[in-house]
């Protein structure tokens, strides 16, 4: 069964450093998302991406965040200058289409900012 994959599974970084989280969505999917989950809290939407551009972003997704689909398979989330409060699980998700269908989630990357 096709699945969304994410690397690394765990990233530890110093405050102020840049991190890039990587995702490989399901191959025939067209819509891509990043969510985050602070420990013990609910999953929060960050950004959606379609046709090589951002379709929607939340207020969390400020100018320290960026997303990119550098080739036909990868989808990345970059945090330019990490803060302590960026520590969370980051989930990538993908969809065949918008609307009434399942959104598939990856296993997540645990980001720890020291």
């Amino acid at each position, binding site marked *: 069964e096709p699945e*969304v994959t994410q690397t690394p599974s765990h990233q530890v970084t110093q405050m102020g450093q840049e991190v890039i989280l990587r995702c490989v969505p399901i191959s025939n999917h067209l*819509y891509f*998302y990043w*969510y985050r989950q602070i420990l013990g*809290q*609910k*999953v*929060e*939407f960050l950004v*959606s991406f379609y046709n090589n551009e951002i*379709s*929607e972003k*939340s207020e969390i997704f400020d100018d320290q965040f960026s997303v990119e689909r550098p080739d036909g398979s990868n989808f990345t989330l970059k945090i330019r200058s990490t803060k302590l409060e960026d520590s969370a699980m980051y*989930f990538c998700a993908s*969809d065949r289409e*918008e*609307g*009434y269908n*399942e*959104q*598939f*989630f*990856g*296993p*997540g990357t645990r980001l720890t900012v020291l």
Partner: protein
Amino acid sequence: GESVGLHLPTLSVQEGDNSIINCAYSNSASDYFIWYKQESGKGPQFIIDIRSNMDKRQGQRVTVLLNKTVKHLSLQIAATQPGDSAVYFCAERRNNQGGKLIFGQGTELSVKP
């Protein structure tokens, strides 16, 4: 403010019993709802979904009920098994707001053998 939330943070059931997990939502524009299961250290896993033009949908051992009058969603798990132990989230998509999901707080289900 608008939110999707859960009534109870934890639920403990005996193996073999039925489980009911509840969710309240506040935006009547929401037209699609999904239940996800999240096991420790893993990403959310789709369980079942329902559109707002339905009030009940059944899957394998799971049933989702939607009551639009009181903006309430529930997930029923029949014959709960130890493998059902996880955190369960309801999520909504709002009409004309693209594909993003709005998640509730989550209920931790614990199944006692």
